[in-house]
């Protein structure tokens, strides 16, 4: 009997240890970038152009660039991903075509991001002649996030109780009316979760934007979708590896801003999501 108790305690201990191992790196990352980057944060750092070969001044264009890229790529991938997921989960029959599509989605999720970058370069930048621009970068990032959005949306649609569909159909609603009024509203929080996951990914990826949009040094703001922009992750790479004699807190400050920007956008999405949850 006592043996059982001891065994259980050891079991719990192992589980707790594994959980702590997940938390520790998160805390360390936050501590590292906060302690080394906090001192860089200033009005000048956040809202002015870089100066002196990026060794001074701010990172404003990179913040704006990353922000634009996130908005533009989500604006592209969220509607397409959601519509595709609706088709796949509500309309598509289980046939060869559907299976091929599913396989394609899974494979798309497995493609490494630098390959997406190369693909974006050849399709959007060169073939479609969009040039190195926000539109090329956003489309590349958007395609990269499609599998995440499709998968989370499908799961969200599947989680809507069958009875909502049944009762709506039994009232004579058409399939589309049923989806529109009694499935989608209840899947929306889950769909937004997909969007949230994508925001972090889009904001943080470097490889897909390397050839398609990111500028090394461009101390002005974009005027249109066909302009190049600086972006935080690429800027971070540059200041860390390409520019000698740069203050250390510039590097960690940039990382801090990147993490903070993702955090702010995620919080916004979480607030929208909880509003929808409440409405239920």
């Amino acid at each position: 009997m006592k043996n059982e108790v001891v065994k259980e305690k050891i079991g719990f201990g192992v589980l707790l240890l594994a959980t702590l191992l997940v938390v520790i790196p998160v805390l360390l990352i936050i501590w590292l970038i906060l302690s080394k980057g906090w001192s860089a944060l200033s009005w000048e750092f956040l809202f002015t152009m870089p100066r002196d070969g990026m060794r001074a001044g701010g990172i404003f264009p990179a913040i704006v660039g990353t922000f634009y890229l996130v908005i533009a790529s989500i604006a592209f991938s969220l509607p397409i991903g959601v519509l595709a997921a609706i088709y796949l989960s509500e309309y598509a029959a289980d046939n060869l075509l559907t299976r091929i599509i599913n396989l394609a989605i899974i494979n798309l999720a497995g493609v490494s991001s630098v390959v997406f970058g190369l693909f974006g370069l050849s399709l959007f930048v060169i073939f479609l002649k969009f040039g190195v621009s926000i539109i090329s970068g956003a489309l590349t990032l958007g395609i990269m996030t499609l599998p995440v959005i499709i998968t989370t949306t499908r799961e969200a649609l599947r989680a809507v109780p069958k009875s909502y569909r049944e009762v709506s159909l039994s009232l004579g609603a058409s399939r589309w009316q049923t989806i529109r009024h009694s499935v989608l509203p209840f899947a929306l929080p889950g769909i937004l979760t997909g969007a949230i996951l994508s925001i972090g990914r889009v904001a943080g990826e470097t490889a897909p934007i390397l050839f398609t949009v990111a500028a090394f040094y461009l101390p002005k703001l974009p005027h249109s979708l066909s302009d190049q922009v600086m972006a935080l992750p690429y800027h971070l790479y540059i200041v860390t590896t390409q520019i000698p004699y740069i203050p250390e807190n510039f590097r960690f400050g940039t990382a801090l801003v990147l993490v903070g920007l993702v955090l702010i956008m995620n919080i916004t999405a979480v607030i929208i999501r909880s509003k929808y949850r409440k409405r239920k």
Partner: protein
Amino acid sequence: MKKIEIEGLNLFYGDFQALLDIRMSVREKAITALIGSSGCGKSTLLRCLNRMNDLIEDVRIEGSVKIDGKDIYKIKSGLTQLRKKVGMVFQRPNPFPLSVYENVAFGLRVHHMAKGSELEDIVGESLKAVHLWDELKDRLNRSALGLSLEQKQRLCIARLIAVKSEVLLMDEPCSALDPLATLRIEDLMQLLKKDYTIVIVTHNMQQAARVSDETGFMLLGELVEFGRTPDIFTKPKDKRTEDYITGRFG
């Protein structure tokens, strides 16, 4: 008057035959009960009447179901009109997670039947018809999920009344309710039968005996016996019916 006529109805789920050559008719503005043990096919039969079985993959249906003389399995132009006319009340009360008002208005909006003050009127009338108006008139905008089970079930019935369903299919409508609420829903059914044709599937033999005018007893996909409720319960013709109603199995 016959509202529904079922002839030679066979239903298969893949290789399994769930309904065997069902023949029966449902009287207009009366309550018809289907009784039988679990898995006998009574819910399946009920779901044939508004073609809800069409939603299940691998279902094959033979025979004919005529409502007002028209075979519902020969409809070409979509099922929305059929399902509007033949409404369904489910076992678990299933209001949408919307307000009381929006629940009743849902069907009206879907069918573009009413707008503005007309919509409000119909919602009010429908709630009055199921005796919910007095209880809920001050909280029409609250979520329907906060209602009691009985109120929810009444609301589900109001939803059908709003779209002017003619036939109400009830799939064990009281099995989630307590005995008193059950009796009150049964009273409501008696009132509704003046205007509606009701088909009810029930596990509860006493309920069938109390509320229905005609009863069908089903066993293993077969309609064993069908007749006036007093006859079925007092002088069943078939030995199997007698065994069931006297509680020897089921």
